[in-house]
């Protein structure tokens, strides 16, 4: 865990410092030019003139103390910048995961039970189309239809009241869920098929239990394990997708902050964001491992 965090931080730090241009040049806009001395003063103040290793060590020491530094672009603490966005990204991702489950589980299960029928073929073709569609394009199409032609939902930004907020969450989360829906549906179907062919399910059926009970009590819980594996494994790609989707819908989350900060060369913010992203990925993997033990009693930690 700790080597991982150090690795992630180092890589981010190195990457962002390799990008040409620095944040001070960015402050110096086109309509107004900072003088050389002024820029030097800012660089001095934020320690940007020190050799990279010095900056790196200082950053790591501060990080250990819980200080993520100051955003040069907005002059506010990185912690403030991130804490403003983190909840939005978490809400967006979790809503998307829930949507994925709500859509994929029934379709996948029905496909498996009706294997080989038109329903199955239709559902699987649908799933493959979902996988093959560019999510950001799907988002634009949704925006066009529901935001503009039908005028049912807000197209961009985030609502303030709970109802408005929920409405503004719909399009981005549906779009984001597209990244996983087709994929998870396929996994649900194939793992369901696999479980249905296993001995104990056959035995249960042979014992005279109704198909419905067998499916619900025996097959389903076991078929869920790969689904959890996949969703946790895909969590990072969901976060990555959120970066683009947040940009499309103007959702004020961490992904948008990261991209904008890369554009602004705001080192501290980028490093902070990427760290938080990495932490979320690591955390989700941890939670998944714990969830296994609840679902599958065979898995226990030594």
């Amino acid at each position: 865990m700790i080597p991982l965090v150090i690795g992630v931080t180092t890589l981010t730090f190195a990457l962002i410092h390799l990008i040409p241009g620095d944040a001070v040049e960015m402050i110096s806009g086109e309509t107004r030019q900072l003088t050389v001395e002024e820029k030097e003063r800012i660089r001095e103040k934020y320690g940007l003139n020190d050799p990279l290793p010095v900056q790196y060590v200082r950053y790591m020491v501060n990080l250990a103390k819980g200080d993520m530094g100051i955003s040069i672009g907005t002059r506010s603490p990185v912690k403030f910048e991130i804490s403003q966005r983190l909840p939005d990204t978490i809400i967006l991702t979790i809503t998307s995961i829930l949507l994925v489950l709500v859509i994929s589980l029934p379709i996948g299960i029905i496909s498996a039970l009706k294997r080989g029928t038109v329903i199955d073929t239709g559902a699987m073709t649908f799933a493959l189309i979902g996988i093959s569609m560019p999510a950001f394009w799907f988002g634009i199409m949704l925006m066009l239809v529901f935001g503009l032609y039908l005028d049912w939902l807000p197209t961009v930004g985030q609502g303030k009241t709970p109802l408005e907020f929920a409405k503004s969450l719909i399009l981005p989360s549906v779009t984001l869920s597209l990244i996983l829906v087709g994929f998870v549906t396929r996994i649900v179907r194939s793992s369901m098929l696999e479980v249905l062919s296993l001995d104990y399910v056959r035995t249960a059926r042979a014992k005279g239990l109704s198909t419905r009970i067998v499916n619900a009590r025996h097959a389903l819980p076991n078929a869920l394990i790969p689904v959890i594996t996949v969703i946790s494994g895909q969590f990072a790609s969901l976060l990555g997708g959120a970066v683009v989707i947040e940009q499309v819908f103007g959702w004020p989350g961490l992904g948008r902050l990261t991209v904008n900060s890369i554009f602004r060369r705001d080192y501290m913010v980028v490093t902070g964001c990427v760290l938080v992203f990495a932490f979320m990925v690591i955390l989700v993997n941890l939670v998944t491992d714990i969830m296994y033990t609840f679902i599958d009693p065979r898995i226990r930690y030594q």
Partner: protein
Amino acid sequence: MKRSILLGFILILVMGLALAPVSADGHCPQEGGTFTIGVTNILPMDPDTAASDWTFYIITNIHSMLFRIESGQPVADLAESWDISDDGTVYTWHIRPGMQWHDGNEVFPEGESRDVTAHDVVYSLYRSYNNEASTMAADLRNIFVSAEAVDDYTMVLTLSAPDSIIYDKARGLTWAAIVPQEAIELYGDEYGLNPVGSGPFEFVSYSPDEEVVLRANEDYYIEPCLDEVIFKAMPDVPAAMIALEAGDIDWWGAVTPGDDVGRFQENEDMTVINFGCPVATRLYMSVDKPPFDDVNFRKALSHMMDGVAINAALRGPTHVKGAGTAGPGVAGYVEGLYDKYHYYDPDLAMSLLDDLGIVDSDGDGWREMEAGTNLVLPMHSWNSDPGPDYVAAVVDAGAQVGLIIEPQIADGATNNAKRIAGEFGIYLGQGWCGEGGTNSLWGRNGWIDSLGYRDEEVFSLLDLAASNLNEEEREAQLMAATERIAALYWEPAFSFFNIFTVKNNYVKDFFGGEWTLNITTDDHNVWIAEDER
């Protein structure tokens, strides 16, 4: 159509008067409500360092200004009136008594505010003056001598020479927001995150990249009709256009794309407002580097592209034919510069290149400057619409005359870094429209300085014009400067475009545009007709 709007307006006015609780002086047909404004980006709101025009919409509503600009004319704000000495160098400002700093914040607890005085104005001006990086324009700074408080409500500003364009909308004094010393000392560099002013609206909250919320300042000398003003940051313009049409934002305050302007003009629920200041899209070049250092090469670039056709295609109904550093309607505008200098003539461009020895000697269709290697011109551009379209047009125009143009579209940081490192080549940019703009952009030490644009004759013409109180002479000097810049082919241009902002019609008594937004002044008090939404 106009008639029905008028009728509707009267009806609502009557209904508003009948139903809505009328405020103390009865100036609001309808009280309360939230005015939501969309802009492309929002920066921290320190008037001294914010470099964004849109952030100034916010700053100028939180803070009092000495005066505001409406329809190109100065109107009273913090200064109730002012006198100018005959030689134009001494300004005596009479400060409005009874103006109070916003209270209920960390600096001034509720009920513990104090009056804004001439000393605060002096403090704010010197804060800008002493900060080399401030928004005070270089040419104004050059003639600034002193600012003194004669008494609590009288301030005297002394200049070394008359400033003919002191009311220009893009200059230091129009942007000089008055700030309290206590807040600057408390917050330091973070003042922009916690602005405290004395304007019609108080700062409530700032969510970076998202929004700024302001609420009405009930102690202001005019009570605002609105309860709340929200500024939303919307970098994605097409999405913002959809939001505007859906009524999620009430006014789009930044540049509206041409196609949308045409559409909104036909929409009875929308009003399209002209900024009144056409802007040019033009190519800046590293003129101190070969091959750009040769005026004939710049001339060839200018003639190879059909600037008017490109601009008309990309800007739609906002397109305005013309060229030059000052747009139509702005002092120093010279008519006919496009047809005189920048007209489309690819044959002329090719013969100019041939004369320069930039020829295609190996027959591969591309010209070389040195034998064996094709000449490749790097072209930098900003990365939002329609920058990339202009780039595509220039690349194609170059291909027609045998020049390879290599686009490098990047964000502002990268472009700035490259500009400073002198790696620019061609840069596609949008020009300033105002008089102050000509000075601060094209004058000594202006933005273009780092690209190597230097010409003593232009500099002295601009200097002369800036201190010339004779309007006719000044105009002649500015026009001479504009013409000379064009004759030097400093800036192949694609013609101008108008900047339009768009509001929904339920926003009433609105005055905006010209880089300013005055929500509550002596002449205007914006209110929202909620029942028309």
